[in-house]
Structure formats: C-alpha cells, structure tokens
C-alpha cells in the first residue's frame, strides 16, 4: 500500500500545475462530441438512420471514456480495481442490453 502511495505522489505534483487546462480540454472535448451527436440527429433527413445511431453511440462512448479517464481520475495510478469493477458492471449492463435487443420480442 505504502509504496503505491508514494508512487502516485509524483504524478500528483505535476497534476497540480497542469491541472486545470487538462480538465478544460476534456470539457471542450465533451462539448464537441455532444455537439456532433446533436448535429447528427438534426441532419437525420439526409442520412441513413443506422449510420447515425452508430455515430451517436461512438460519440457517447468516446465522451464517457474521456470523462472517466480525466474527471474520475481513472487514468491515474491506483485505479486498477475501480477499473476492473467498473468494467465488470459495464459487462453485465451490456449483457442486459443485448438481451433487451435480441431476446425480448420475436
């Protein structure tokens, strides 16, 4: 435990200095990704629906990854277990969704 702690101290010190810009960049990314998604839907008349849905989902997943990595500090050291358990949750969630899409109506 202790060694893990001191290892993260270093990255943290740097963290302090670059801190704010990094988060603002993440924020701008989020806004842009959301904008793309909204715009894609606004253009729905012209393009094929499946294509748009794929765009929407890609934007959502990208945005979530960025937010998790930066805002929730997932990319920092010592977050292996949180990552494992979040992925576990995501896996089960995805299972449910596959169920809902393929095996509820026939």
């Amino acid at each position, binding site marked *: 435990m202790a060694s893990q702690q001191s290892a993260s101290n270093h990255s943290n010190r740097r963290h302090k200095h670059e801190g704010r810009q990094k988060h603002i960049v993440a924020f701008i990314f989020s806004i842009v990704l959301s904008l793309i998604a909204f715009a894609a839907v606004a253009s729905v008349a012209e393009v094929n629906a499946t294509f748009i849905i794929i765009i929407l989902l890609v934007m959502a997943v990208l945005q979530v990854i960025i937010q998790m990595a930066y805002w929730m500090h997932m990319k920092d050291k010592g977050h292996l277990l949180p990552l494992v*358990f979040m992925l576990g949750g995501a896996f089960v969630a995805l*299972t*449910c969704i596959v*169920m809902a899409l393929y*095996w*509820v109506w026939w």
Partner: protein
Amino acid sequence: MDWLTTVDHKKIGILYLLAGGLFFGIGGIEAILIRIQLIKPLNDLVSEQAFNELITMHGTTMIFLGVMPIIFALMNAIVPLQIGARDVAFPFLNSLGFWTFLFGGLLLNLSWIVGDVPDAGWTSYVPLADTTYSPHHGVDFYTIGLQISGLGTLLGGINFLVTIINMRAPGMTYMRMPMFTWAAFITSALILFAFPAITVGLILLMFDRLFSGNFFNVALGGNPVLWQHIFWIFGHPEVYILILPAFGIISDVLSTFARKRLFGYSSMVFATILIGFLGFMVWAHHMFTVGLGPVANALFSIATMLIAVPTGIKIFNWIFTLWGGSIKFTAANLYAIGFIPTFVMGGVTGVMLASAPANFQFHDTYFVVAHFHYVIVGGLVLGLFSGLHFWWPKMFGRTLYEGLGKATFWMFFIGFQLTFFVQHFLGLIGMPRRVATYLPNQGFDTMNMISTVGAIMMGIGTLMFLWNIFITSRQPKNAANDPWEDGRTLEWTIPSPPPEYNFKQTPLVRGYDAWWKEKMDGNKEMTPAEPLGSIHMPSPTILPFFMSVGLFIAGFGFMYGRDPFDNAILGFLFNNYIVSIIGLGITFGCMFLRSVYDDPGYHIEVEELEDKGGRA
C-alpha cells in the same frame, strides 16, 4: 441492547446466524408442509392457494433469508480472521446490512400474519404476479421485502470486497488467501453485479403493481418475457453466490482434516473466478421453453455446459487433496465428504438440463426440483453444516458434540437422499413441479411418499442439530485456539472466541496456509507485524437499526397507499403516503446524523490488551 448496537463483525456474524437459522426453520417448516400435502394423491391438507403460497415462500425464504444469511454469518465471523484483520472495512455498513436484511425478511414474512401471501412462485412470473391475477398484497410483500433485504445483501457484498482488498495483514497476498476468503471475495463480486439487476426487476414489478406502470402490461405494450430475463440475469449468478462459499468451506475443511495442503490451490482460485464469470452468461437456460429461438437456445446450452469444466476441476482437486492425506472423520469432515458425491449428482443433472432439446422434457418437472435440491441442500446446506461444525468453536468457544454431530449427519443425509433421489424419476415419468396435488394411478404415489418420509428425516436431523447447539451451550467455554489441532489458517492463532480486536498484534504472513507454515517451522505463534500498540475501535450505534425500521415502515406504507380504509385516520395516513414519508424520514434522518456526527470511536490501550491477553 448490546446486540442491537453492535458493529463487531463477530457479533454481527452471530446475529446473521440466528436470523438465518430462524428463517431456515420457517422455510423448512414450509417444506415439510409441502411434502405432507404431497404424501398421497388428491390430499387436501392445504388448499391449492395455500400450497402456492407455501412453495413461493419456501423458495424465497430459503434462498434469500435462510441460506444467504448463514453464508454471511460465516463470512462475517471468519473472513476478517482469515486475513488477519481487526475488523471489516465498514463496521457501520456491516450492521446496517444485517438490519436491513432482517427487516426486509420480517416484512416478507409479515405476509403470513396479514394473510396476503405471495403466491406466484419464487420466480414471480408476470402476468401471474400482476394485480389482475394476484390482486391481493402478497406479491407486494415480495417486491418490497426483497428490495429491502437485497439492499442489506448488497451492502454486505461491498463491505467484504473492500475488507478483502484493503484490510489484509502484511504478507497476505491474494494468492495466499485461504479458499474460503477467495470464495467470499468472488461471491461478493457476484452480489455486487447481480443484485442491482433484481432490484431493478423488483422496482419495475412494484411500479406496475402499485403505480399502474406498464412494463409487463401486454395491453399497453409491456412484455412479460422481460421480467423473466431480468429475474434470471440475477437468478443464475445467485445460485453461484450460494454455492461458491460452500466450495470455500469444503476446501478449508477437507485440507484441515486430511492434514494436507489444498491440492491445486491456484487452479482452484482460477476455477472460482471462471465460474463467477461464466455465471453471468447462462441465464437463459432457465428459459429454453420460452421460445427464444434455436440460436439463443444453442448458445445458452453450450455456455451452460462449459461451467462443468471449472467445477470439475474443483471436484477432482478435493479428491486429490484427500489422496495421500491422513483423513480424520470429524462431523465437519463427514459433511464435507458427503458434499462431494452429492453435489456432483446435482451438478451432472444440471448439465443434462443444459441440453435445450432435452430440457423441453425436464423443464418445470420434479427433475428440476431434484437437480436444484441436490446442489442446494446436498451441496450448499451440507457445506454450511460442515462450516458450522468446523468454526463453531471459533465463533462460540465451545465445540459441538462430535457423536451427536455424526448421528445428525447420517439422519440428515439419508433423509436428503430419500427425499430428492426419487424426485428425478417423478419428473421423468411426467410429474410437473408446483402442483398442489396429483391424480392417482399415474405411478407417482410411492415415490412421493418416500420423498415425504425423507423430508421428515431431514426435519429430525435439523432438530438434532438444534439440540446439539442447546446442550453444547451449557458447557464451559473452553475451546483451544486451535481446537482441531490441524488448523492451517490465521483464525486458529487467536483465542476462541476471539477478543473484540481479533489480533493483539497484526500477524506477519509468510506463506500460504500461514499458521500451518509457522507450525511446521516449529513456531508456537505468528510473528507480529507491528509492535503492541493501542487499538482504535468503532463505537456501537443504534442508527442502522432505526434506518432499517424506517425502511420497513416506508415499504409497508407504500404497499397500502392505494387501499381503501374504513378508519379515516388510517386512510389519511396511508393514502397520502404519510406513513411512507415518516419511514423514509427516519431512514434519511439517521443517515443525516451519521454523516454529520463523525464517530470518534475509542481506543483499547496497551495495558488493557495485556490483561485481556490471556482471557478469551
């Protein structure tokens, strides 16, 4: 009073055992009634409606309120000791988890007193569980009671995960953890991922029933199959939540009484993880006849069969743990040894069920009933009896009578085989499950009678166990630290029962089977990892108890929110959800208090430790 406010994991373990035992008894009495009703064709001991209530409450009570709390009892009592911890990570949540479980369970069983009992099976399939076909409040007790008790289980799961991750003694690496601790770890992870799913399912059903939602209402686009999916996405992992701890117990007991290291430890760990993982991908094997189509049925058949492989690895590892060992037949070990062939029989019928085309014949027959009682009673319950005999001295300072324990084993075991072996054949020759009675001349009569006789023997076995507890409790508390003398893990290095702080000094772990290793190296005790110092302890608190009472009241209030009342005051209180608001107010008020007033805890000073040292 002490018991209401305790946050000590060992005492909470005992509370879990008491409550779980009580519910197991209730579930068992329901089982006996089911069996007596079925003793002969066209029996009318209970009405058809009452029969459905009995099976529903039997299944629900046994699974959620009977065996899971007993598992939690052992995990609470033993896991912190096995990893050399002073306490669990969240003593407060631990207590909260227990009380919410208990009040959820009480709410569910209150249904017997109110007279509106859940009657749609423990699986509560809609539309049968809708208000149209089950108009009384029975199913509301089910949805709300299980939500509350499920909350407790979820809290318990998180608590064990954090405890095992963060609280291990120095040197206790993951790959040195005893198998029971590993099992507790994986089981807790399964709880974490499975219980939210059933919580959502229960909420949907509750919304449909209490607030006229349409999730399962076909007329407005709802879909009953959705419920089945959600239930089983939880339900299948749930059965591994039940069995993995038993696997852990068996591993520890067998290696202790064979005086041999667990064979293939790392493959055991791997198999446990794999079973947990695969457990989430097989739920639809309960739904082969629902009509999901051949592709889904094929996929889920194969996925299900795969689980036989890691489970087989475990079985053979146990046998080879015994191989070359020096096997002592204590009562605990008898149960563990009885577990192996019996569980395998249940497991292989599971694999038979997994073959979808054959499942069309097996499904919803007594063959399934036989399957799951073989794995649950012949597996889990034997495992729990084994664990209880094994750790009883650690938990209570007294050893259960060996002779009586062995006699109990034989009574229960033979009764078990009589009850459930014949049920395989009943199912195959055409007896559906969940039937309140059956016509004569179908070839069912003799086997049903044998089955009932067996069930009564199991009941006698359970009574013998209770008797054993009773007479043992009148003996002096004189169990040694390591009463079996062959103990391998850390819990056997401290007094029985352990002092409130468990370890005077946190031990230094130098290998797998930490205590055995020290013994083999000729040491009389563990090397401490820290100097003797004052120990910080959390204070007892009544808040968890009241938070749970609050939930109980709130749940009760919601249930009757739309009922007409003769009494104007009652009507006012319930119909405006004032009762619920009061209940939630109590719960949130307590949460608020907890958040605002930090618990300073107290310290046990060195002098105190020294004179407590000798005493148990």
